[in-house]
């Protein structure tokens, strides 16, 4: 009786542990690299896969197009143009740190074709009227690189 209980517990625990590991592995396998910086994306221009491109919107480059917006993003080293289809999110603006989901357009200098924009805000919080060191704030060009 006692050994049967032990077996039961051992089986239950192993099943739990396996579920955790498999669950994490499956869920994160495609997403461990949740985004690529502009420099990394430029280095892997040949890829046809969908990925997320991280950068800050270059101020003054946002132009509305018939189907969405066109703008430049930079990581401080490289800058690329993004052609986005659809409405950008509420906090989309000059300098906003963005993740654009999509793939490279065809052609050597084609824009990155995005169909989803997410805002990756930083961990700093401050009221609007406080003088801040702009280089340390969320709106700076380089998003954190993991």
């Amino acid at each position, binding site marked *: 009786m006692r050994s049967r209980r032990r077996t039961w517990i051992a089986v239950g625990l192993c099943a739990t542990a396996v579920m955790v590991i498999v669950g994490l592995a499956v869920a994160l396998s495609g997403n461990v690299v949740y985004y690529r910086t502009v420099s990394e994306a430029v280095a892997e221009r040949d890829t046809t896969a969908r990925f997320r491109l991280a950068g800050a919107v270059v101020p003054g480059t946002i132009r509305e197009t018939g189907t969405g917006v066109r703008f430049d993003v930079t990581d401080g080293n490289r800058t690329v143009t993004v052609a986005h289809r659809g409405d950008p999110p509420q906090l989309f603006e000059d300098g906003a740190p963005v993740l654009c989901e999509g793939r490279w357009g065809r052609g050597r200098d084609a824009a990155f074709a995005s169909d989803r924009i997410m805002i990756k805000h930083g*961990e700093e919080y401050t009221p609007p009227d406080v003088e801040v060191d702009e280089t340390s704030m969320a709106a700076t060009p380089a998003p954190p690189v993991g």
Partner: protein
Amino acid sequence: MNATVAGADARTRLLPKGLGRAIDALTLLAIGALLVFGLVIAPPDRFQGDAQRIMYLHVPAAWAMYLAFFVTTLASVLWLVPRTRSMVWDRVAGSSAEIGLILTGLTLALGSLWGRPVWGVWWAWDARLVTTAVLFFLYLGLLALRAIPADPTVRARRSAITALIVFIDVPIVHFSVNWWRTLHQEATVFNPELNPQIEGTMALTLWIGVLAFTLLYLSLLDRRYRLATLEEGLAERELDAAIEARVAAASGSAS
């Protein structure tokens, strides 16, 4: 209330009654202060505006979730060590896990409500969000395991060992934003540099939120523990009544 009920009352409580009432009162005060600070006194965020105020619930809920699961783990260890083994720890572990699960759900829901206006999406399959969702289902599993009818000692041992295993995900959740690239921000207060990136009044509001949720957790734990002891008492009484009915039926048919 007669003497026997009062005596039973002392054995059904985790905290002395007076302390429990004091915590309840302080919880209400802290929630009131959080409402005033969170909605009126704290300034809106420079970038996120008023949407940032969700932080004053989301972060304290996540903190209380960590606390609840830590208490479950500690109580499970105390049950497993023969010298401290007591059903008190089994009840604390179960009660705390239940509250922690609710707090995890709250953290996920509040995070989703915050994500929509700020990120632009309700959900993202990034490491922080996925590991937190996994945490929810791990503790849901622990509670399901606790609900399987079994001998109390067997159930307590099985639950205690499982509680130690599922806790592994808690540090993974906390450090996920440092280990992997995520849409979720890195820690504002408990960052690796231990240098909070938040303005004074906002930080104070956040701490009031943490205090309010900690007190709320203690208040709920005290109540849930009492409920657990009362449930056990009821189950015992029902068993006694069932045995009596059997005996009565048997003697009735014999005569």
